[in-house]
């Protein structure tokens, strides 16, 4: 493959991913408008109805329209992940940036707290929190936010630390810019860019944890249409009607892939430090994780 066709292919894939994400966001936002049926409407006569003009993806074991459930599922999953991402970013940024910029005792204390949370395996901790808080969409959001923020805080902190001592920041301080303005103008913008990349790349991971918990019955519970819940619903019919698992599974798969592609593209655009040897797809969030892990040594 020569450079031209390679680049064209990359751009094509990026555009496709972007379109898919747009489609998902639209589905999520406009679910009541787009969905042909009420996702909770049980019509037992239509039990396991095959795909038809009226029901393009057929019906599930309770006669509910699968396509409608998928659309509403997008709303639940994406909505959940969006809130989680927001919470994590706010929490991680506040703590990480404060620790990095202030340094000293503040830094030590905040980082100890971070370390404690990082000591737990995240999914297990989320399970435990659900056990304590109970199931339901709010608790899922809380559980996953509380278990994931520490990673972000660490990354933001090391990023802020590296920025703090860069020449242009020091120059600004020497020139007399107040601390606050320095932070605002010189430290924040690159941090936001980095955060955007990290968050996009991690959305897939968060979505899998939300759906995973829901699949186990520890997250969003039936009858709420959520892709993980749909897979759990369909598991007993894997022998007879595997498509009930296939559709929501594919939905998650395509969504995660689309966000990963988007995240890589974002990183290419915003972070020019990708090395020539490794291509963008290779790393997802690993180097950041590596930085966190090795830093914790």
């Amino acid at each position: 493959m020569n450079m031209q066709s390679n680049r064209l292919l990359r751009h094509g894939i990026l555009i496709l991913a972007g379109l898919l994400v747009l489609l998902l966001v639209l589905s999520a936002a406009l679910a009541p408008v787009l969905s042909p049926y009420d996702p909770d409407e049980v019509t037992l006569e239509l039990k396991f109805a095959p795909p038809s003009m009226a029901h393009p993806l057929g019906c599930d074991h309770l006669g509910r329209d699968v396509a409608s459930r998928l659309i509403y599922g997008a709303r639940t999953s994406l909505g959940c992940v969006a809130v989680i991402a927001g919470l994590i970013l706010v929490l991680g940024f506040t703590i990480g940036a404060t620790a990095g910029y202030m340094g000293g005792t503040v830094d030590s204390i905040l980082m100890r707290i971070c370390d404690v949370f990082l000591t737990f395996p995240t999914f297990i901790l989320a399970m435990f929190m659900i056990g304590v808080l109970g199931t339901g969409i709010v608790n899922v959001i809380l559980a996953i936010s509380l278990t994931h923020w520490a990673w972000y805080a660490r990354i933001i902190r090391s990023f802020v630390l590296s920025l703090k001592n860069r020449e242009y920041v020091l120059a600004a301080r020497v020139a007399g810019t107040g601390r606050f303005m320095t932070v605002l103008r010189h430290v924040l913008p690159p941090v936001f860019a980095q955060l955007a990349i990290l968050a996009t790349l991690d959305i897939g991971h968060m979505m899998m944890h939300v759906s995973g918990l829901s699949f186990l019955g520890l997250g969003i519970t039936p009858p709420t249409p959520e892709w993980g819940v749909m897979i759990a619903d369909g598991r007993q019919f894997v022998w007879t009607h595997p498509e009930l698992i296939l559709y929501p599974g594919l939905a998650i798969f395509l969504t995660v892939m689309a966000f990963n592609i988007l995240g890589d593209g974002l990183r290419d655009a915003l972070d020019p430090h990708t090395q020539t040897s490794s291509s963008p797809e290779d790393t997802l969030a690993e180097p950041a994780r590596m930085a966190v892990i090795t830093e914790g040594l």
Partner: protein
Amino acid sequence: MTRYILKRLLLLIPILLAVSLVVFTILRLGHGDPAMAYLRLSSIPPTDQALEVARHELGLDKPFAVQYVSWLGKAVRGDFGISYVTKKPVLDEILYYLPNTLILAGYSLALTLLLSLPLGMISALKKDRLPDHMTRGLSFFGVSIPNFFLGFVLIWIFSIKLHWLPPLGKGGFSHMILPILTMSCMSLCINTRLIRSTMLDNMHSRYVLYARARGLSESVVVRRHVLTNSLIPVITAIGMHAGELFGGAVIAESIFAWPGVGRYAVSAIYNRDYPVMQCFILIMTTIFVLMNLAVDIGYAWLDPRIRMQGDDQ
């Protein structure tokens, strides 16, 4: 090196203490009255008097610090309480199921490492040629597929359609294949890409240039120098994989009805069986911490710069 190991071993104590404190705090702060759950599971009507008796029996009427210390004292001696559901000692039950989970996790980790190393190497050495494109494409897919979906896909292909492998339960080795594949997929893909990118970075490093200038053969350069240096971040990544694997084990056990500790814990969570829940997270976290310690030691063993930082020159 021994000093480094000793230092890390000593650090375990405050770490585990902090973990236990967090678990205990979350438990006490969360919703759900343990006394209520206990009564419910014992099928005792929750009258006010019964609640009071239950609270006293469970030690819930004492101050927080006292509760914590007495709980910790018992935990250290191996007494994690009685399951609200089965009325048997919690630690015994968990230790009964734990080996099954560890078997799955162990094999999955082994598969991840054994497959990702050659795949990553080939991908790096044959960069931008067909093996590389195939590996990268497959890895990209593998990272995006949720393991609870993959499990059913594998069941459908290998059990339902091909009748090659059993879909459920514990039995011989053939029962383990599908769960292990389900669990290792994501770690395998991540590790392959990691090895590829690390090796490529190292292939362009100056010490490789100098090694070639010194006349070393290409195979010596790659095998001895590039690979050793590439292994360092890979070893560090094992800790990360372990965390994902534990989560994957819970899901795989659910899908394949594998009698492991994850499945046990899920049903305990349904039942608000608090003693089981807290023992579960403590045991799993302790294993996780020990694994990370092993990883750190392995990392220090490989990289003299880390090893010697603690010692005097």
